[in-house]
């Protein structure tokens, strides 16, 4: 399949990249969501701005306890990076397991957040971790919390001129992502990420709603003294899972409770 025509630009720096962005222009990172969509002509772009090689987006560092992962860091690089392995093992583990090796060599977690597939793993994990995405645009810099990023099925609050430059992961005590799939390298039929941090346990689910889903009922029950098993029983409350060839909605609700229970068991003492 051949995509429709587009122009391709490869800026040398972040400022230049931001200056090139605007309506009709798409950021190209690893291309492992965008290129298939362009080939299938599910989406169009007048021009692509390739940020995949920008050195400023390819760094991982620790900034006062916050792990800052550059937007062009690939899954495979995440899996191998000592700082990620030490300070955010849940993302390091995702980096070594999501999809397949070829996809991990190109795809970026930041691109997955911008793509905002509710079935995606990184969006649910980001929501549970409470990450912020650092954004640059012609108007300046800002950060967007994951909770304000996902607005609909593959829709975000990012605008046409926005460039995500990094993912900022706050410190936490323990985190686990539990995913149920039909074959190991595929999207979650349902997934749950549980994170224990200074303000309690946060839980977010993959593929049970139009956006990655924060299971606030589970979190509240735990705060009120419920056991992990009691809290996990509430995981499907409020969800609206897809009903498709990979599984009926009722099955996904069941799985939501199961994967939440397993994830909680990993992070609660």
């Amino acid at each position, binding site marked *: 399949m051949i995509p429709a025509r587009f122009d391709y630009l490869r800026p040398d720096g972040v400022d230049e990249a931001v200056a090139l962005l605007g309506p009709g222009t798409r950021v190209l990172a690893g291309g492992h969501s965008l*290129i298939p969509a362009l080939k299938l002509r599910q989406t169009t772009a007048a021009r692509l701005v390739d940020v995949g090689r920008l050195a400023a987006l390819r760094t991982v560092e620790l900034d006062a306890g916050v792990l800052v992962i550059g937007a062009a860091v690939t899954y495979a690089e995440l899996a191998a990076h000592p700082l990620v392995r030490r300070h955010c093992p849940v993302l390091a583990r995702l980096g070594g397991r999501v999809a397949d090796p070829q996809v991990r060599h190109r795809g970026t977690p930041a691109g997955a957040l911008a793509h905002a597939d509710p079935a995606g793993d990184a969006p649910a994990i980001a929501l549970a971790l409470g990450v912020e995405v650092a954004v640059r645009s012609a108007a300046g810099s800002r950060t967007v919390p994951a909770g304000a990023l996902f607005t609909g099925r593959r829709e975000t609050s990012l605008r046409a001129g926005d460039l995500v430059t990094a993912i900022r992961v706050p410190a936490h005590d323990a985190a686990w992502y539990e995913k149920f799939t039909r074959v*190991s390298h595929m999207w979650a039929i349902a997934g749950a990420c549980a994170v224990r941090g200074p303000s309690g346990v946060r839980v977010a689910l993959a593929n049970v709603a139009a956006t990655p889903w924060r299971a606030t009922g589970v979190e509240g029950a735990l705060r009120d003294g419920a056991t992990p098993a009691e809290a996990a029983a509430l995981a499907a409350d409020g969800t609206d899972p897809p009903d498709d060839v990979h599984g009926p909605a009722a099955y996904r609700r069941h799985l939501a409770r199961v994967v939440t229970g397993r994830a909680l068991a990993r992070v609660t003492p």
Partner: protein
Amino acid sequence: MKISLIVNGTLWQGDVEPRLLLAHLLRERLRLTATRIGCDTSFCGACTVLLDGRTVKSCTVLAVQADGGSVTTAESLAGDPDDPATWHPLARAFRAHHALQCGFCTSGMLVAAAGLLAGDPDPDEDAVRHGLEGNICRCTGYGRIVDAVTGAAAEMRSAP
């Protein structure tokens, strides 16, 4: 757009449309047809090549993204068709273990296996299976492919 890349050790320079896929550049412009296009939707791995030493699905990489890089295709694992001694150990092992039937997946499997062994010269069965997760074979049931890759790995480790 003018791009230059090294393909199997040889410099290639040319003018390409930005929308040209790396798989199409290899097959149609360079006539390196070992790289297959199977699913064309980034699932099957038949189009796997090494880009700067890492496996990628060339149906999901733009040729312009490979500009300045180095590409290795299954052709680089071949030798004299009549003389297996000249083949890459992986190619020999696939033959010895009957690790192919129709052969459509084979070039992608070989390149994926080469990429795997470059990072892990002694993978156990589990590591081979996970390492080849991006490559689908509809014929063999994978068992013989796993045997071939572990067999080739052993040979490559013992080679001087």
